[in-house]
């Protein structure tokens, strides 16, 4: 008994080894490098020059606007994606004819076959002066500016992140026990009441997962604001790209990264605690 326990332990260790090595090399070590850099100084022509200073953290308020933009547009984009994705997922999971289901699901994924860069670039032309605004001019609405506004960035976000929101919700709606819906209506529940009290609560794990996926990725987003915000809707991701690729201030960039990671850890753990609490009593796991 004892021996087999021991060999089990070896087996477990062996099986976990590749993941652990990967985890340490690709996640822990880089994070340590970033942490160390964040206390350093910028070299004369850019880069990292060692040293120990808190100067980089003291300079954080100069990027306040970027943090504010990210902290408002990322949640707004997540919420908007949810509002657009839920009806779509609902339709795909519960309403659509079985034989079309697969093809419709594939259609949701198809945009992923092309680079986000190319698809976002296309939106520059759709939202630019010769796109939607010129159509609006035809019906007499003039002087509409869409491109390089927070609204344009939100459109880009919803477009780019929709599949990430649709699929988790689709999965939880798909495995929803249909007999519960019948039971509700048998017992006199109106369709609205059934939806509010059965469908929505049972799809919450999918909603929670989708929101988390989209929100976490949005916090680091830089491509969509750069293209559709014209450099005027500035995310913390853009500040980071700038610090590493333009001003080459690696230590300050590292300090901003560390701050972002801390903000994410706090937000995500609060969020998980909230959703876990509201999910207690159900056996569905969050992810």
């Amino acid at each position, binding site marked *: 008994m004892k021996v087999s326990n021991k060999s089990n332990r070896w087996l477990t260790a062996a099986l976990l080894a590749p993941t652990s090595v990967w985890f340490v090399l690709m996640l822990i070590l880089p994070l340590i490098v970033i942490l160390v850099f964040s206390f350093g100084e910028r070299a004369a022509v850019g880069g990292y020059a060692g040293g120990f200073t808190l100067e980089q953290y003291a300079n954080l308020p100069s990027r306040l606007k970027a943090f504010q933009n990210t902290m408002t547009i990322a949640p707004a984009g997540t919420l908007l994606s949810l509002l657009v994705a839920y009806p779509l997922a609902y339709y795909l999971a519960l309403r659509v004819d079985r034989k079309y289901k697969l093809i419709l699901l594939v259609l949701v994924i198809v945009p992923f076959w092309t680079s986000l860069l190319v698809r976002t670039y296309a939106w520059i032309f759709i939202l630019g002066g010769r796109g939607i605004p010129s159509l609006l001019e035809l019906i007499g609405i003039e002087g509409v500016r869409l491109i390089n506004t927070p609204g344009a960035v939100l459109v880009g976000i919803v477009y780019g992140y929709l599949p990430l929101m649709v699929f988790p919700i689709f999965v939880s709606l798909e495995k929803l026990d249909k007999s519960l819906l019948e039971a509700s209506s048998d017992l006199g529940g109106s369709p609205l009441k059934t939806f509010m009290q059965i469908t929505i609560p049972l799809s919450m794990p999918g909603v929670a997962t989708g929101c988390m996926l989209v929100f976490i990725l949005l916090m680091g987003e830089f491509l969509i604001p750069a293209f559709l915000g014209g*450099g005027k809707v500035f995310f913390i991701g853009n500040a980071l790209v700038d610090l590493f690729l333009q001003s080459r201030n690696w230590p300050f960039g590292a300090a901003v990264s560390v701050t972002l990671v801390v903000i994410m850890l706090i937000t995500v753990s609060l969020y998980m605690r909230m959703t876990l609490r509201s999910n207690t009593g159900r056996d569905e796991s969050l992810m």
Partner: protein
Amino acid sequence: MSKSNDGNKPISATKFMQELRRYQKGSVSRRHFLGVTGLGTAMAVMGTAVPSLWSGKAQAFGDLGDRLIFSTWPNYHDQANLDEFTAMTGVNIQVNAFGSNEEMLAKLQAGGTGWDVFVPTNYTISNYVALDLIQELDLSRLPNYDGAANNAKFAGPATVNGKVYCVPKNWGTTGFIFNSKKIKSGPKSWKDFFDVTMGAGSGHTIVHDYQLTTIGGALCALGYSFNSIDAKELAEAEALLVKSKPHLFAITSDYQPGMRSGDAWMSICWNGDGTQLKNDIPEMDYVIATDGGEIWSDFYAIPKDAPHLDAAYAFINFMQDPYIQAREAAVHGYAPTDSRAIALQPDSLGSDPILHPAADLMNGLEFGAAQTLTDPIRAEVMARFKSA
């Protein structure tokens, strides 16, 4: 952006290839081939390398590998020329387009770029040499390059401590462009540029996502040097930029789409983009500002750790051919530094005021300085302006 070749250039890429194939097949004599393609003059320069050059791909170029990674600027080449190099040598060119010299420097500093050839601007070269990021060129491997034919004013920065690290590509100016149908006041200076931005043209101006030109323009508007690294002057420039930010259409170095769609009416502009825009939209006017601005030259250089060195030399040599240079210029709209190539430009381009402006217009222009690029205050001013 590649445009089709036509009209008044020495020879089109297609025609060149047809002639080359005819010659390779033996349908025409070598003399005919050299005459038609205009390579005759180039041959004189290429010297002994030539006889073997046209006797078949493999022999002529040796084994150059099948790949070349080339980092350059947007809208800066005629795709036909790159394709021609690939057809002649079997080397496929992977082009990376960059938005700023800082970005190139950052990538090279980080290491492992895999680049074989890149296109630095005059003020970066001494930095690259100091950081040991580029290699000294073996000019004997670049028979098409003729140092004497290049204007020393533009070619000068290629030589650091007596060693040649790169060969010149083009030169140009940094001014601004405006749409004269939308902006009637005819801005002439950087001061006008910012006045119009915050006045009649509010919401329709683009500044570069590049500290050198954007801060430089603001400094000139305030009456300071384009290259200033004085903390007080930079603080004033930052204040001007931040004040104008709500009136900007965008902060981007990719300004042609905005100007072409009509969303933007005015933009900081490199003169080649000015030519490209003017060719397609006549109401676009390129301005060399009366209160200063930049004059620059670009180069071909090879990074220290270039993986395909032979292909890199072959490519630079190919691009130094005066005819190729002239054909490039006809598409990208920047002036060659090489007098052999200028002589081959059609009259319409040789006297073009955007490509070859009158000398007195350029009196106030400055070459960017090495420390302008790397100054930490300028970098931080730009970053703060963008996140303001």
